[in-house]
């Protein structure tokens, strides 16, 4: 079974994962007594019970509660007080909120493309030869597994601190920035480097996608006299576009949720000067530091709406640049 799994194409195409439908579950023999349809219905809902409870009690229900709280003032101990749109108007006058939106956007919109470019570059490097790359693939993947952990955040902070190895190393090259952690201007590059360091997960997905591109396409391009850049632009990129789309969606959503590393590097303050005050950190502080549950719920819902619109736009524009041809089965 393992082999079947390994040979299957990557789930690179989100649209390709539509349910295969009830037709796939046809049974040869008829059954007397209780109709097959009824038995299937009962079995289906029995198997789905844990998920259904989870969905209604821990996902849909909470979403509605959160939506209601977004229009209230609520501190967990007294009853929620309906205040209409006040939470939302407050956001537009809250400089700390604006700052957190700004740095989160910079992190997502600058960090994600760099990370994906690194992932694609290294994937192409690994795809250059088909044998003997297993070690490298695993080594590059390792940071993705631990990158969001507190341990790595601590190490990152130690490495980029004043007199840490990065600072000292740059000192040898004649660059003296005096520590990245305490410098509001350098915290963002440091956080983006931490994100880029975890390029392994999208790289593995790119690599699986690259292996699906038929070699004949490159041979044909060779015959037509195409150079490496031309082959990259006209064969690799279009053939890989479903995988790029999938990675872009996944990584951007992941980047919006950055929390532990920012929280640890700033010791929970969002500092210095608010430079690690990412959306999730600020939301956490408002909700659980100041018990402004209503305000924080409004922030959460605004994020949901914005992410929803962004995903919608990405899906709608995807038809202009994502090619679902005979590329991925």
């Amino acid at each position, binding site marked *: 079974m393992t082999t079947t799994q390994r040979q299957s194409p990557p789930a690179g195409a989100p649209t390709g994962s539509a349910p295969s439908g009830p037709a796939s579950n046809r049974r040869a023999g008829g059954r007397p007594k209780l109709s097959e349809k009824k038995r299937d219905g009962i*079995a289906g809902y029995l198997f789905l019970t844990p998920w259904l409870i989870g969905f209604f009690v821990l996902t849909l229900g909470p979403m509605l509660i959160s939506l209601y709280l977004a229009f209230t003032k609520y501190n967990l101990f007294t009853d929620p007080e309906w205040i209409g749109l006040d939470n939302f108007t407050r956001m537009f006058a809250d400089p700390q909120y604006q700052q957190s939106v700004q740095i989160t956007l910079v992190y997502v919109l600058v960090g994600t493309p760099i990370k994906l470019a690194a992932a694609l570059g290294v994937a192409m490097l690994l795809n250059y030869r088909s044998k003997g790359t297993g070690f490298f693939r695993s080594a590059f993947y390792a940071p993705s597994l631990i990158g969001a952990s507190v341990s790595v955040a601590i190490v*990152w902070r130690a490495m980029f601190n004043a007199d840490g190895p990065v600072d000292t190393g740059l000192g040898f090259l004649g660059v003296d920035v005096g520590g990245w952690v305490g410098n509001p201007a350098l915290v963002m590059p440091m956080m983006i480097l931490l994100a880029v360091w975890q390029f392994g997960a999208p790289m593995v997905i790119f690599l699986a996608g690259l292996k699906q591109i038929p070699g004949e396409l490159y041979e044909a391009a060779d015959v037509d006299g195409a150079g490496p850049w031309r082959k990259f632009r006209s064969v690799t990129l279009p053939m890989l576009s479903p995988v790029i789309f999938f990675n872009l969606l996944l990584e951007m959503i992941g980047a919006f949720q950055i929390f532990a590393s920012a929280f640890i590097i700033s010791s929970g303050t969002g500092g210095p000067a608010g430079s690690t005050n990412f959306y999730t950190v600020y939301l956490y502080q408002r909700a659980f530091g100041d018990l402004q549950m209503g305000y924080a719920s409004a922030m959460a819902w605004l994020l949901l709406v914005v992410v929803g619109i962004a995903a919608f736009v990405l899906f709608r524009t995807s038809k202009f640049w994502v090619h679902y041809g005979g590329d991925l089965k």
Partner: protein
Amino acid sequence: MTTLDTELAPVLPVTGQKQRVPKWKKRSTWATVVWAVVLVVVVAVVLYPLLWMVLASFKPSNEINGNVALIPEHPTVQNYIKVLQGIGGIPVYTFFLNSLILAVGSVIGVVISSSMAAYAFARVRFAGSKLFFGLMIATLLLPFHVLIIPQYIIFQRLGLVDTFVPLLVVKFLATEAFFVFLMVQFIRNLPMELDEAARIDGAGHPRVFFSITLPLIKPALVTSAIFAFIWSWNDFLGPLLYLNSTDKYPLPLALRLYNDQTSVSDYGATIAISVLALIPIALFFFIFQRFLVEGVATQGLKG
């Protein structure tokens, strides 16, 4: 190292042009050497932080800052002795035990609940299955921010804050759609004939599930179990929200204690416990790296 990297990078596409070799797959020796050098340099840069971390944990605190050298000049286990003394009167093994309970509980919960849901979606025909499958996929993209506040309120009302229940119950209810999706994909790749044969012989869905589906999706179960373990082991926000007493802290919260209590000049112990906290993940990684990397490659799971 970085300069070497940028020097070599532009060389590669040129050598990839291979005028003399007609076949696409064949490479010249020279190109292969350049390729290998570039790869080794990139790997060195990527692994440097991990290597530095492990070796720094054996350096006296005053040696950690101020030099880039990897090898400790005066190796010491003092940092580890300090870690073993615990923090705030709590021995360090308590944090490991708490992490272990949460991680093992998560694995059990995820494997049971996700495989059940996946079987229902992939193999049972019932009204509403398409709708629920769509909703399940939608929750893959849902930012968790809209859930943490109301979920906290619910568990607080139930008096379950400062227990492991909120952290574990979500796993037993298949709320992590990634795992359900991974298993659905896997079950759909299994031949339908096996199920049909069993059902003609009179086996019901529970029988098919236990005797046919579960044994066949073992690779997917293992992949899910490893990821469930690692995600739980690394989880910071969940324990931060729900656990207040220090003796219930799992490792990430304990690390935070060390991180916030020690001054910048005394990183030794903090780095040492960070290394200890990563050891179980490192073990999983070395034993199961194929499962992990293949899981990512085939299902797009992220670490």
